[in-house]
């Protein structure tokens, strides 16, 4: 039987993969994609939480309100919106970098340090 923590573990793994991508990859676009992976992992967790009420009788939300509680979905919707906006700005910044350096390697942008 699939339960909440199956989803959570999958979400955790995907999130970690995203973090790993940010850490390991030098291509700015791939880093951007890895961030998208992180955000979507978070979304998955939220939707799983919406569907599986964690608390039973002693829970924070009483059962009859449950059907009306779709606010987690709104959160996911907004995260998607924000992610889209972020990708837009991010791509512009990457293009700007490419124009300056003829490369999208983030490790070449290391003039500022110390």
């Amino acid at each position, binding site marked *: 039987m699939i339960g909440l923590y199956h989803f959570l573990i999958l979400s955790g793994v995907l999130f970690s993969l995203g973090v790993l991508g940010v850490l390991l990859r030098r291509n700015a676009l791939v880093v951007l994609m890895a961030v998208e992976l992180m955000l979507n992992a978070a*979304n998955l*967790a*939220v939707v799983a939480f919406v569907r599986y009420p*964690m*608390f039973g009788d002693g829970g*924070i939300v009483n059962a009859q309100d449950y059907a009306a*509680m779709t606010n987690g979905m709104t959160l996911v919707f907004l995260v998607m919106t924000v992610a889209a906006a972020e990708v837009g700005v991010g791509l512009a*910044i990457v293009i*700007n970098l490419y124009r300056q350096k003829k490369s999208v390697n983030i490790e070449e942008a290391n003039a*500022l340090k110390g």
Partner: protein
Amino acid sequence: MQIQVPEISLWQVLPELIVLATAVGVLASDLFVKSVQRVNVTLTATLGLLIAFFTARSLEASATPIFAGMVVRDSLSILLDQIFLAGAMLVTWIGHEYARRNPRQFPEFTALVLFATIGMMVIAMSADLIPLFVGIELLSLPLFVLAGSDKDRLASGEASLKYFLLGAFSTGFLVYGIAFIFGVTRTTNLTVIGQSLAAHAEATPLLVLGFALLLVGLGFKISLAPFHMWAPDVYQGAPTPATAWIATGSKIAGFVALMRVFTLPDVSFAALSDYWTPGIWWLALITMIIGNAGALMQSDLKRMLAYSSIAHGGYLAMAFTSGTRIGAEATLFYMAAYLLMTVGAFGVAIAASRSGQECEKIADLSGLARQRPWLAFAMSIFMLSLAGMPGTAGFVGKLWLFGAAVQAQYYSLALIGVLTTLLSFYYYLRVIVYMYVHEPDDRLLFNRYSFSNGLALTVCAVGLVGLGVFPNLLWSTIRLCTGAV
């Protein structure tokens, strides 16, 4: 199906709407008026911000959330709106000076500053994690862009890339944190979260993990160590007015978000403060040390200010950790003081340019006192206030911050704070020594600075001394805020 539309009280968010209209107006002026002049853009923005400022002042505070519980117009949000609007005005003014020499900066620059301001104001009035999150993003995206808006300098592009990538990375943590908190409490409404947490005053591991992730996301915004590493690079690379707004507006907004989420009593996580204070305690400690140690050996003015700003984030976090009312009050007061002194310092960095050469190194300030005495005097006030010299707002603020820490019995934290503050005198006074004591380089004269820049610096300097001598001007308002919420 019955659809219940909640009450729409637009007049309650009038300041935000006015700023939005101003931003659009500024953009439109570029589109439709061919002979748009810089002065007009700055004037439009100033006018809009002034109207918004006085509108915010005239709003009546109420602790009842509006817009179906999404936002709340309490006195805290009204005060912060004023702080943000005043800050945006100062940044617009010093940005005017910058744009005068870098004509491509306009007018999107001003518009983006205004968009970021809306984001900050939204954070200030959030009563729910969702608008808080959207506000943070609305604040961040324009700042990412502003950091990269100077096409003539490679550093600017690099700054914006780093800022963006790391910002997006931290957003991932923030969203994941919100997800866990939502998962445990089944709501994003801060008031409901607060009530339920107070009812079950015990944290589940998932909730604590949510705190940690949320702290990473917000810690990035306020550049708490070790989430601070983007800050020196971005501050140095970004165009100076953008740096000023990143250093002040974004950081203050980050603290406001922390405040909304963590400390406001009966609203949010305050009931579980035993669980999250140790984390912030450590972050504050590391931040104070790293910020001050980093600033010590810098020769680049903006980079030095960046580390100094990190250190100030640490002091603020120290008072914040105490979780007491006096801590919140001290944090609020120090935010206002910090805004004035930091914007002022960056304003001087803009104004103290020589022909064809921006002021980058601290040594570039040599002889400023001889040629531009007022500029040097104002900078001295900013530096002394940052250092916490008595007689300036910085001292009063720090006294309270440390007082709050002592009151909360965080003796070691206060001790480290005082020690690092004393250390900070070294690099702040070094700036003064360069300005007053070192011989001017007479071959290159300092540029004349514009009226708007002078006005901004005057406002900052007068404000700092004024708040240093009469802190009660602000204090009474602040007490109203913490008493009301």
